């Protein structure tokens, strides 16, 4: 396959995963937080902390992918 064709497909693959990755990051963050809360009995603080981490991870991925593939 030609180089720019590969680039196009790579862009398509990357962009098609933006939405799900964003949602999954938040869900994983919250899930880790809830699990840690249950283990350490600190409800709800770790859930809130890891929820924020999850949102941050979602945005980090989004910005990284857009910078990488959006141009």
């Amino acid at each position, binding site marked *: *396959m030609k*180089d720019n064709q*590969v680039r196009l*497909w*790579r862009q*398509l*693959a*990357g962009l*098609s*995963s933006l939405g*799900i*990755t964003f949602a*999954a*990051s938040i*869900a*994983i*963050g919250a899930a*880790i937080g809830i699990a840690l809360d249950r283990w350490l009995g600190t409800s709800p603080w770790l859930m809130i902390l*890891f929820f924020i*981490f*999850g949102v*941050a*991870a*979602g945005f*980090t*991925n989004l910005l990284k992918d857009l910078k*990488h593939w959006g141009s």
Partner: protein
Amino acid sequence: MEHHPTIFQIPNFLGVIGIYGDWVPEHIAMAWLVMAILIGVSHLATRRLEAVPGPVQNFMEVVVETFGDLLTQMIGPDGKRYLPLIGTAGLFILVGNLLGALPGLKPPTANLNTTAALALTIFLSYNYFGVRQHGIVAYLRHFCGPILWLAPIMFPIEFIGHLARPISLSIRLFGNIFGEESVIAILLSLIWLGIPYVIYLGIMMPLSLFTSFVQSFIFVMLSMVYIAGAVQVEHEEHH
């Protein structure tokens, strides 16, 4: 929705390990069918390797070369090391998706368990490749970002970002194939109306062939992107 059994069924012999029912679950039976097809074709292609290849060997050579070229372009000159993993995953998904387009068979990839197994394999593999390439300390340091005092914040963020990858891989493949399969099942259950037959042959059949190729290609492409990201950490940061 009415349940349509597939044509291909295997009597359940897995009762001893806790799987109930009269038949082996459909997605497992179909996954075995796909494996059998792949093993059979590979055996046919490599049984008598010749300098002037016959049709089967020729076809498989083209397939393998396509994967190899893609890997070289995406990962670098070292890319062909990952051909066994990527090629197997790609061919399994492609053949599974295409089988699903035939009426009476279900794609194994229309079940979240199959796609989750594939995505987990890719996830564990690319992390292993990264550790093998850089050593565990250097690989984990990449997770912490460039600034040292931000590391306690960056590490969980990167960690969650990496965990999101297998989820997005598995859910995208499952969702697309399952949705396509559901539409086909509904159309087939309405087939006495006549018109759905035209829709099935004219629209859904080409569309499902198209999604089969695109979804397996996207899965392979993303796996390569992840492996490339894990293997050439330093290289990525210069961009």
